[in-house]
């Protein structure tokens, strides 16, 4: 039986405010609260709440046969808690049906997987704990930010305890292979890879409201028809996209919600089911291995990482940022930890992209800067201030390793003092 695996990415980028260089050292707050709040409110009203309600209806009316999974970043959850707590409630309600799976992903929508393994591990664990805390269950399937994946990243993910990974169906990796099977890691056959079918995903995400598309309008019947017409042996169809496809990228009036509502009926008619990633990985055996020597992602035509680290501006910013990792890990200041997560968001680096700057391409997300240079200038000013703050925590002339040792001694002594004090109290009594 063929199955469809619907996954949605939920994340809203943090917007930086205009931060001039003469504010470096004076102003330590970097965010445009108004933009952040209105973005979350807008997305909640037009997409998250509405779509959650409809998916919930679909699950209930199909007796739990319609299934869907979400990859919600920790930062998005934090933003919901702050600006739109009802969204969390509606996700909780979805979680209760049992037909919903929450995927593991880095806490911030970051590129940590490419730059720093420790930071990556930390973020993945933070995220898993957050999901457990809110929805009661630890995730078992992993989907990286922008589906970043390479053999090496796969190994790292496995070492964190995740054996099921969703990856992009990039042409240069698949070659003649079809994305509609379960694959395994290049040399670790315990790691199972679910491959995103980017044609079907983009049909909904980008082409659903595109009048000039030759298949317009896309109906549920047509969509299910394509899956039915695929060769019999191809049995897994992973459709993965940003949740904003429902209601924002494709406006409510485009009929996107009606399209989704109709999907289960046609699917049942054609004997096509819906399954969660973890179920698929449990049931199926990998047919072959997939090897990605270089990182790939779901972005652009190239499906590589050049959207975030393809030019000198981006590399400079990312290097400066991740050079701080060790120091930040040593810090105990909670504000630094928070900023650290927010500054890692992929969007900051995406805006510095000069690749498409000249040809005026339209992106899924509106770019708040006039040019990549403006994005870079603003980000670097913020980062400069952040670097100063991190460096102010401990003297920079001490090596991180040495510092670590010193800090350990201090902490041990603190513990010892506490212990002795309690003993002293006990003795007094």
């Amino acid at each position, binding site marked *: 039986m063929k199955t469809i695996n619907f996954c949605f990415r939920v994340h809203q980028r943090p917007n930086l405010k205009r931060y001039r260089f003469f504010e470096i050292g004076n102003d330590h707050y970097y965010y445009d609260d108004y933009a952040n709040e209105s973005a979350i409110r807008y997305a909640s009203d037009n997409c998250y709440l509405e779509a959650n309600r409809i998916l919930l209806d679909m699950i209930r009316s199909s007796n739990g046969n319609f299934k869907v999974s979400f990859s919600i970043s920790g930062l998005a959850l934090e933003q919901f808690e702050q600006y739109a707590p009802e969204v969390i409630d509606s996700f909780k309600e979805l979680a209760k049906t049992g037909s919903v799976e929450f995927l593991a992903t880095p806490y911030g929508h970051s590129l940590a997987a490419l730059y720093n393994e420790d930071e990556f591990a930390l973020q993945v664990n933070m995220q898993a704990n957050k999901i457990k805390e809110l929805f009661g269950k630890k995730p078992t399937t992993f989907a990286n930010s922008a589906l970043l994946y390479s053999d090496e990243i796969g190994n790292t993910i496995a070492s964190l305890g995740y054996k099921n990974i969703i990856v992009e169906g990039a042409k240069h990796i698949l070659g003649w292979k079809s994305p509609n099977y379960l694959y395994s890691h290049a040399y670790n056959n315990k790691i199972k890879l679910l491959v995103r079918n980017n044609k079907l995903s983009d049909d909904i995400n980008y082409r659903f409201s595109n009048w000039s598309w030759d298949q317009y309008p896309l109906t549920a019947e047509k969509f299910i028809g394509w899956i039915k017409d695929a060769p019999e042996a191809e049995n897994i169809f992973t459709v993965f996209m940003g949740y904003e496809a429902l209601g924002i990228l494709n406006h409510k009036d485009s009929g996107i919600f009606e399209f989704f509502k109709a999907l289960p009926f046609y699917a049942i008619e054609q004997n096509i089911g819906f399954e969660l990633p973890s179920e698929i990985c449990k049931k199926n055996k990998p047919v072959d291995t997939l090897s990605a020597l270089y990182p790939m992602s779901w972005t652009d035509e190239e499906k590589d990482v050049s959207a975030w680290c393809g030019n000198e501006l981006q590399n400079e910013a990312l290097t400066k940022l991740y050079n701080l990792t060790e120091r930040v890990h040593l810090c105990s200041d909670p504000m630094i930890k928070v900023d650290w997560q927010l500054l890692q968001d992929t969007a900051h680096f995406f805006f510095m992209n000069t690749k498409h700057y*000249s040809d005026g391409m339209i992106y899924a997300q509106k770019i708040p800067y006039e040019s990549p240079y403006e994005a870079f200038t603003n980000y670097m000013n913020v980062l*400069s201030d952040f670097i100063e703050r991190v460096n102010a925590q401990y003297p920079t002339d001490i090596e991180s390793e040495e510092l670590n040792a010193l800090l350990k001694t201090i902490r041990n002594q603190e513990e010892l003092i506490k212990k002795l004090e309690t003993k002293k109290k006990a003795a007094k009594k």
Partner: protein
Amino acid sequence: MKALMFGWEFPPHILGGLGTASYGLTKGMSLQPDLEITFVIPKPWGDEDQSFLRIIGANQIPVVWKDVNWDHVNSRIGNFMSPDDYYHFRNNIKYDFRRIGTDDLGCINFSGRYPENLLEEISNYEAVASVIAHAIQFDVIHAHDWLTYPAGRFAKQISGKPMVIHVHATDYDRSRGQVNPDVYRIEKEGMDAADHIMTVSNLTRRTVIEKYHQHPDKVTTVHNAVEPMANVEEFTKSERNDKVITFLGRITMQKGPEYFVEVATRVLQHTKGVRFVMAGSGDMMNKMIRLVAQKGIADKFHFTGFLKGRQVYEMLAESDVYMMPSVSEPFGISPLEAMQVGTPSIISKQSGCAEILNHVIKTDYWDIDAMADYIHAIVKYPAMYNSLRENGLAEVNNIKWEYAGQKVRRIYDMVCGR
């Protein structure tokens, strides 16, 4: 197709951007094999590059019939044009211009500059145009800037051939809105008489439509380009401790020099190792020197005076940032020249060239904070400097006069009904 062009300047003896643009455009157009250009200027010096077009000096065209023999003509202007041509022009004097003061050959003495009696010179130029229009064959008339509009109009009246005019600047740009009524009249009459109007930017196009009341269909933008530099490698940056930020141009209201000083003040308050240079001269120079002294930044702010020719490129190449905070700039070719020598530019959005450049920094001319911020970024973050430099070079090398020339040609074809 034969084009008769009226201009005012032609390299190497130029006073402003008009000469550079005239040269580049005609050179780019000369790549079209079926196009012949005759370019009239008031006063050629004899060292102009005539390899791709014919230059006629208005000061060698007789407007008053004088009986002179072949040898005399040859000795006087033989190195510019053959005496036979002189006689040909003399035979085509159809009007009585004896009221104009002429020399022994019946020619008018032009200064070729922008003298006090500019209006008189413009009307004399008109007289010359009448002789030329009678004497030679052409299909289209092309007049560059307001100084030559009357000449173009007269030539059109005589020949009945279509006229296009090329607006390199309007008086609204030069005066921040306080237009000179005489200049406005000449501009407006020229535009009204033209069959088509070309402007160097959409900004200028808007001015022409809104302030001179021209029909939008009649006005087309043909962006300027830049001549590729043959000897780019000659201009390099020498090792220096301080970063240099440069303003280069006439120090006058239109160019926004006071904003440059304000930006310098703002940057110097927070950043070490930066110097500012104001190159050029102009009516606001003394005012700027006083302003710099007032702000107390004179130790880091330098004036070079007027630069010419090679010095301009040397200055640009030595700079780390080139800044053009023009309040109103019809096109502004200097950022392109800065990019050619690999210097990142910060330009105002009120500049015409901002419309075609991506890899420069664009801000509003009054946005001092933004400009200061970008200077800081370029100076402090090498990636910013390198990206702007490399991408800018690639971009500017793709902006070619050849393409502008093709656009002009399509307009010629249109007005000639081809």
